[in-house]
């Protein structure tokens, strides 16, 4: 029983730091974030979330591949596949908005989910980590919005 340091799963923390959203975090910071993430494994063709579901957080692909099937005309043009390191559903991190597409696993996929309430508690408890993650999320959202506005083939925020 350790009083002054948490038991570290070095492998999973290092894997987390390889994801784009958490690349700027130090080991200890990633350790704190890792405790808030929920890892899920989806089989091929399993639905991760459906269009219209109320979203409560983001998903980040750790391994495997997922495909988005939107019904919105604007989004149908894009080829919407996400691989390791990419995130989905970041809009739901800030408000309880309905998902704008159905996302299905193309192959057996491991994802991590960051829940809104836990993200906000991270912002409160450790502003430094929260800001780093927030900056990364914002840059991803900004890039995708710009691509959409410029009619490039990339999915905007889900």
């Amino acid at each position, binding site marked *: 029983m350790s*009083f002054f340091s948490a038991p570290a799963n070095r492998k999973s923390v290092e894997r987390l730091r390889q994801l784009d959203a958490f690349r700027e975090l130090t080991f200890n910071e990633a350790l704190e974030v890792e405790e808030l993430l929920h890892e899920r494994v989806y089989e091929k063709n*399993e639905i991760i979330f*459906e269009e219209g579901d109320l979203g409560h957080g983001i998903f980040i692909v750790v391994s495997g591949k997922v495909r988005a099937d939107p019904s919105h005309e604007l989004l149908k043009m894009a080829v919407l596949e996400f691989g390791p390191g990419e995130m989905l559903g970041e809009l739901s991190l800030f408000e309880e908005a309905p998902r704008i597409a159905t996302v299905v696993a193309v192959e057996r996929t491991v994802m991590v*989910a960051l829940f809104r309430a836990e993200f906000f508690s991270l912002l*409160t408890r450790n502003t430094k980590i929260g800001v780093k993650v927030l900056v990364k999320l914002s840059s991803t959202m900004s890039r995708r919005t710009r691509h959409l506005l410029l009619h490039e083939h990339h999915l905007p925020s889900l």
Partner: protein
Amino acid sequence: MLLSIFTTCLALFLFQRIIWLVVPGLLALMIYYCLRPLAEYLVLRGLRHETAVAAIVGVLLLITVGIVFMAGPLLLARAAHSQGAFEHYLAGGENLLRKTIQSLEEVAPVLQRAGLSRQVDLQIEQFTDQFAEKHLGTITFGLLKWLPSLFLVPYLTYFLLKDSTRLKRFLIRSIPNAFFEKSLLLFARFDESLRSFFQGLLVLTFLDTLCLATGLFALGVSPALLLGLTAAVLAWIPYLGSIVGCIVVVLVAATDFPDHPSIAYSCLALFLCVRLLDDFVFLPLTIGRKLHIHPLLSVLMFFLGATVAGGTGLVLALPVLGVVTVVGETAAQVVMDRRLRARYRAARALATAWDTSGHSEPRPPAPNLPP
């Protein structure tokens, strides 16, 4: 509701076997929710989470040990005379009851003609005749049997504070993917409800203690603070606790002022006023939404609880029913969602299809999964 009642009775039946774990568990949960803001504050100030938790629980333990060492010898000395003290206060209560009956007979002579005081004297005699010798030992032994389990409280509190996030993740991991997101949301709401309930309960206890102690001090009943605190803590048990607390205070007042029954009546009035303050002012401000259990259902649960689990059931019936109702409503929102159930069935079918598809190689593991 029927399912809630049945589940409550089943839980009470199981709890009476493990009462030594249930009571410390509930206390630890309450202390956890009350100390969690302090732990979060220390983390904000720069301490690591584990260090903050160890510091808080350490200080709590020191305070507890200090109180035990200071109050222990005094309590042990008084315990030796507990039977005598119990009979002394019981006699005070009898005296008050007799005086009250006499006053009523003076006001309404029809009661005197009906022999009310004779009937009451007979009932009192039957009740108190060797009551202490027959039952006090059993009650005391029953309490002392599980009292040592209270030493589990700081232990459970420490691990709840330290590992609650990990425990939540462990529980969430067992939920199927289809129900995952909604469960996470409802879990967070349930956690928030428990937090506001326990923190509100602590504030309510403080307010009740303040009001009762002030009133008892003004009436000249002592020890006012101890009696106020005891009654406020007993009020945690719905309905029954308030009544027991009131009886305790009235007995003390009746014994300390045998020639002035008005003091005891004033204590009763004080309790009624504090009860009204609780219902209309304090409860809405602190705990907020109550569970809205129908009074008839409350009485039914008392009887059912007592039948299923004796004294334990009587005390825990309503709290357990409240928890079971909230958990049941929360779980129903997830499980009864048809779209999520359909998604779950589809996922099961996919997993089964993989298992029965005759793949020569084993299912590829997800890379780098944590142990």
